[in-house]
């Protein structure tokens, strides 16, 4: 299990003629938790977008199980969970409908019992049938995060998962991430919080040199 799952090889990223980072290389294994750190504008979100295959790097390659993701993007996407800033929740639908859609969009299946227990685990007991427009910002995040409990994907990219959560929810989520990591998921996340999690590694972005501002 020590063989690396995700290899980032010499990746450079440029957005709008600004070089964000250069020759970035690291590897993640099954069961690893990796924090992407760096100042605002250092390219954390861009790195996650590159790893998700949404953004093309200027140079370099991303490999999963030794194969470049650019050779078979669809296959890679089917084992990917990408959780960006915007959680893809429709305000017109109920919490359960939203969760069900997100699972099914990614080819998964979940019974109503699975959905409800995931929502309950996120502290949304009694809100399953509530329209999302009646939920608070924190509750909306939790509806979206309930995906993590059901997801079958093994590469997780989480962009600021702790945003808008209260102290209790943050520590619940930390517990969930640790648990899922030890169950073999490969998890990369960005955060501004200092986390209480143990056994995670940290990649710091920043300091691309040849740009003036």
């Amino acid at each position: 299990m020590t063989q690396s799952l995700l290899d980032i090889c010499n990746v450079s990223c440029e957005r709008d003629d600004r070089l964000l980072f250069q020759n970035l290389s690291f590897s993640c294994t099954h069961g690893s938790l990796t924090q992407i750190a760096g100042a605002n504008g250092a390219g954390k979100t861009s790195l996650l977008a590159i790893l998700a295959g949404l953004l093309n790097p200027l140079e370099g390659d991303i490999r999963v199980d030794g194969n470049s993701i650019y050779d078979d993007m669809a296959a890679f996407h089917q084992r990917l969970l990408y959780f960006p800033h915007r959680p893809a929740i429709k305000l017109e639908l109920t919490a359960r409908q939203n969760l069900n859609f997100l699972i099914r969009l990614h080819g998964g299946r979940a019974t109503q019992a699975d959905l409800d227990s995931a929502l309950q685990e996120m502290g949304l007991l009694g809100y399953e049938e509530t329209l999302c427009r009646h939920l608070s910002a924190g509750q909306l995040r939790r509806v979206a995060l309930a995906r993590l409990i059901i997801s079958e994907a093994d590469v997780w990219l989480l962009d600021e998962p702790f945003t808008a959560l209260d102290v209790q929810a943050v520590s619940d989520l930390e517990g969930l991430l640790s648990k899922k990591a030890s169950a073999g998921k490969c998890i990369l996340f960005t955060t501004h919080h200092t986390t209480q999690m143990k056994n995670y590694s940290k990649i710091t972005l920043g300091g691309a040199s040849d740009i003036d501002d």
Partner: protein
Amino acid sequence: MTDHRANQVNDKPLLPVLTTIFKHELMTAFQNRQQLVNPLIFFVLVLLLFPLGVDPSPQFLSAAAPGLIWVAVLLSSMLSLGTLFKDDLQDGSLEQWLVCGQPLYFLVLFKTIVHWLYTGLPIVLFSPLLALMLHFPMDNYSVLVLSLLLGSPVIALLGGIGAALTVSLRSGGILVSLLILPLTIPVLIFGTGMVLASIDGVPFMGQLALLASLFFLALTLCPLASAAALKMSVLNS
């Protein structure tokens, strides 16, 4: 164990995802019923302007009816299509579409068709009533509806490109019409041409065939452009 899992998840069929999107789109749309009637109201309103502004005489109206109805369909489609992807971009759904492992081409095509089902189709079905008020000759209703049935999806598919190109821009509304209306001219020409030919009692199979080929051309090519534009818009918003 890893290999086993990889093989298992590698095989995710497109069809269930499309059915899910279909249900999801309709549920979302019907939660917002006012948005469903708005294009229809606009369509009727535009047609109301011509008798008032130009000439209410049956001679003028019956001659102009095919063109008037087609132009009203074009304008109301442009308005409702302008925001086709806006909500999906803002709430992050588009990002999930991009990483769900299914070809974006089909998702975009499907989304556009579903949107046409609940905005374009009602207008098409409603058009005979307006045709009646415009003294359009009764015998040719079926041809009018047929021309709109083939033509309005083309407008929707072209409009989808405009919507995808402008989805992350603030100045969405009028820009979509500005970009897309010139491209809809062939549909307008063949659509009205078909109806006019049928009124004149001459064969209209040629126009029908041309309209049908535009339909299939749009069906295959437009989602390519929309998908490319959407992918880029998501990354830059």
